[in-house]
């Protein structure tokens, strides 16, 4: 087909486009995915029975804050990377995700200094270190699927990095929801195993990006 003919055809379908569409699409995907994750978590794992009491202790808020901060950072990166001219380099994504991790590491260090060394292994491993990262990875899947579907309609050009940002956002969203289930009381546990689950979701996103996001 000749290019002029193609242009004629394309120019027959020019609906107005509302500004900010890509951001709305991504945020809707994030919200929809998070809702699906919440429902799945409620059905499969259940919310912690002492949730109301836990709201009075700082640990729940530390978990939620950690997850929320990472989710906001990753979503902002994914929004940038959904545009073709994004020049966000990989180290930028890592550097942007670092402050919440360092802050949590500071809290964990304080916690350790206040506890006898003999308690450290129990604080680190808790009662669920084997399951925790896997569950976070599992519960990240609905959000990851939604974000990937949304991004496919946009125009990412750095596919692995865009996938990683979507994976990080979905891992963080899953962590937020999972915090309402998991009663592990130590920041060291959260820093280790929650982060491992989030990192796994990020890695999965980076692997899937080049396969799912091509256009």
């Amino acid at each position, binding site marked *: *087909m000749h*290019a*002029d003919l*193609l*242009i*004629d055809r*394309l*120019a*027959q379908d*020019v*609906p*107005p*486009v509302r*500004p900010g*569409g*890509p951001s709305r699409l991504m945020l809707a995907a994030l919200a929809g995915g998070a809702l699906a994750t919440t429902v799945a978590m409620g059905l499969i794992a259940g919310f912690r029975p002492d949730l109301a009491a836990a709201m009075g202790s700082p640990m729940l808020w530390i978990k939620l804050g950690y997850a929320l901060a990472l989710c906001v950072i990753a979503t902002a990166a994914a929004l940038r990377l*959904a*545009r*073709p*001219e994004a020049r966000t380099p*990989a180290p930028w994504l890592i550097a942007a995700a670092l402050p919440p991790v360092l802050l949590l590491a500071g809290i964990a260090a304080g916690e350790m200094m206040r506890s006898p060394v003999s308690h450290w292994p129990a604080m680190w491993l808790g009662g669920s270190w084997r399951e925790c990262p896997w569950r976070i990875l599992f519960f990240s899947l609905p959000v990851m699927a939604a974000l990937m579907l949304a991004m496919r*309609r*946009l*125009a990412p*050009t*750095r596919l*692995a*990095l865009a996938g990683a940002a979507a994976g990080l956002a979905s891992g963080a969203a899953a962590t937020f929801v999972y915090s309402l289930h998991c009663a592990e009381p130590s920041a060291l546990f959260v820093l280790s195993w929650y982060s491992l689950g989030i990192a796994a979701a990020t890695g999965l996103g980076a692997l899937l990006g*080049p396969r799912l996001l*091509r*256009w």
Partner: protein
Amino acid sequence: MRASEEQLRMLMTAGLAGDAGAHRNLLSLIAPVLRGFFTRRLGELRDDAEDLVQETLIAVHTRRATYDPRRPFTAWMYAIARYKLIDHFRRHRRHANIEDLSAMLVREGFEDEAGARLDIGRLLRGLPAKQARAIADTRIDGLSIAEASGLRSMSESDVKVSVHRGIKALAARVRGK
């Protein structure tokens, strides 16, 4: 005469508001620009330029919502064109020769962001020495495979493999992987 950034951005913005005439003008104006862009970079594959022009026009049309009117239009358009070009090279399992690669890495003139320019020497420094030498000998200094193999006392197939692997690594880096 080439359309200016300002003119293209105005047409794009009008198109986003639903002005089909402006949108058609925009596509007509960028088609020859894209043709030049692809023809220059495809080397011996320049027969594929027209396919890429059309693919890019379709992408500019269907993914126009990803254009942010506060940013330069040409940077957005060339980002799409560059993505389509790299995807094309990858799909066809062929490789850009080194001149094309360096041309792809050099930003277009109006995207004059400081520090965005990469030079081929810096790129080659990131490769294993053997691959970098083989590429420099055959693709920059213009030696034949036989001459390069004599100069470096490597077998001809070793030179060929080094060039091939080196360019593959460079192409991967261009894609940002």
